[in-house]
């Protein structure tokens, strides 16, 4: 009996295998070095049976002419090679792959560490660096060491103000930043059926923060329904009895709003412990929490109120932005005093817009709070959308349950 990773990679844990990659994607950040490495390796071909994507999301629009020149070269290349290209404003690579591409059972590789995100669809999805991606451009294949898998067993239902993000911070906190290094996390148990695709994407997204190679959900009727709504179809996957290298159990009903404190993701504490901490900025967005359901939830909580601190909202994709316009969510967010950024990664990586000044404090819905990540001398606290909304209204870290 096999884990889902073993089934998709068609080999037992521990084996080294070469496998065809179904979908390979890179962005404006990693694409530059990928192109350089591809050229150094001959630069004369692309794998035949792989779909190649290039998405601009890290610095959008370009912040200066150096970036613009690097992006120009990549853009021309993507068009010339007929890659599936998403220019500035289309959205975050992982979100585009989720909305438009990945199917259960596929092998998906992205040149970005959060390429674990599409594992929510029952795909084996993982991140690599630029040279590995260049080799995939060249051959359509890459090598994997088939991972052992950790079982994350879920029961019950999320309740109160708790979100999938709080569960994600809880499991990373329990595992530690290297607690699942090179393992695949499998999210299983009856609790899974109560989780939407957006919630599963959050849980898969954070798996790399525990060092994991992948974070997978078995495709079920929730998955198939989501795919159908997006004009895709897929096959369900039933879990087999299998052995996990470690097991974690969570009753979703016990999950409470959490915040990870600087400068580590595995430092989650109940939001109440930090209540009253003054903020300079709140940021809602990223491949963790920039989806439509996140923005709609945020709008519901701030509607008719005013934020007390500068608040940046960045939709994860153009599709998300368009839906917030159609439904009035965007108007509610702007009326509350928030500002909106171009769909993409926003200030998460501190490359261009929305960064922090020395000594400033931000509550962010992103997935990383490393030292100086969002600006030199800034401090990042990670939390859920509801925590971000409650905190934005008060200008200080505030539990959504107290709001």
């Amino acid at each position: 009996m096999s884990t889902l990773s073993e089934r998709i990679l068609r080999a037992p844990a521990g084996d080294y295998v070469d496998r065809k990659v179904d979908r390979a994607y890179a962005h404006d950040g990693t694409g530059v070095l990928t192109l350089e490495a591809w050229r150094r390796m001959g630069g004369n071909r692309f794998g035949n049976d792989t779909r190649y994507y290039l998405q601009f999301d890290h610095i959008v629009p370009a912040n200066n002419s150096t970036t613009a020149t690097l992006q120009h070269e990549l853009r021309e290349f993507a068009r010339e090679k007929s890659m599936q290209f998403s220019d500035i404003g289309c959205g975050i690579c992982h979100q585009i792959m989720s909305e438009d591409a990945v199917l259960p059972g596929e092998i998906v590789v992205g040149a970005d560490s959060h390429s674990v995100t599409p594992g929510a669809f029952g795909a084996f999805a993982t991140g690599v660096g630029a040279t590995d991606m260049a080799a995939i451009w060249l051959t359509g294949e890459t090598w994997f060491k088939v991972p052992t898998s950790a079982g994350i067993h879920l029961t019950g239902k999320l309740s109160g103000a708790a979100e999938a993000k709080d569960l994600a911070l809880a499991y990373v906190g329990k595992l530690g930043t290297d607690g699942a290094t090179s393992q695949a996390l499998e999210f299983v148990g009856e609790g899974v059926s109560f989780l939407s695709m957006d919630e599963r994407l959050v849980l898969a997204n954070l798996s790399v923060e525990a060092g994991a190679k992948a974070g997978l959900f078995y495709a079920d009727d929730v998955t198939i329904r989501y795919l159908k709504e997006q004009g895709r179809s897929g096959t369900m996957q039933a879990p087999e009895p299998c052995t996990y290298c470690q097991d974690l159990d969570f009753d979703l009903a016990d999950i409470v709003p959490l915040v990870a404190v600087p400068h580590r993701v595995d430092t989650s504490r109940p939001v109440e412990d930090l209540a009253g901490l003054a903020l300079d900025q709140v940021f809602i967005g990223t491949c963790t929490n920039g989806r439509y359901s996140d923005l709609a939830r945020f709008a519901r909580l701030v509607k008719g109120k005013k934020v007390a601190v500068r608040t940046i909202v960045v939709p994860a994709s153009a599709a998300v932005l368009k839906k917030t316009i159609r439904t009035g969510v965007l108007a509610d967010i702007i009326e509350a005093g928030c500002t909106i950024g171009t769909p993409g990664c926003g200030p998460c990586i501190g490359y261009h817009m929305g960064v922090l000044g020395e000594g400033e404090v931000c509550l962010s819905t992103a997935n990383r709070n490393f030292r100086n990540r969002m600006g030199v001398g800034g401090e990042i606290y990670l939390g859920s959308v509801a925590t971000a909304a409650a905190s934005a209204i008060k200008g200080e870290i505030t539990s959504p349950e107290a709001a």
Partner: protein
Amino acid sequence: MQGRGTAVCLPADIDTDVIIAGRYLRTKDRSIWATHIFEDLDPAIALRLKGAVIVAGKNFGCGSSREQAAIALREAGVVAVIAPSFARIFFRNAINIGLPLIECDLSCEEEARLHSILPKDGSKPAAGASRSGRSRRGCRISSKQAASWSTGGITRDLPRAV
């Protein structure tokens, strides 16, 4: 493959943002990455890396997929990195660019001397580090990856293979 260098000691969970900050990534100029390496931890570290062996705590290279982290170490003149464990994307990147990593738990007061990073025949890929004359075995990688590592990285291998 053998190497020798003065140990530069670093703590556990060194992330890729700390190795080379995001604000320096928008360039193809590799010397910029070597110059600003570990800047947010201690800018003085960069000056000690030529010919050095980094001896770090667990989970070295965690975080983002930026290959610039591995490249910066190599460009700064680092001979090898020794740590009890490495984050997986960083590990792959290091193989691909030919930066030796050794999985080994060493205390970091003494000079670290590398030894038999890869056996000459490539048949039993293993890495080790010696201390007080005692050899330790570290990580095992596949023979294919070991070969790539020993020849200086995949960019040199692949054009021959395809």
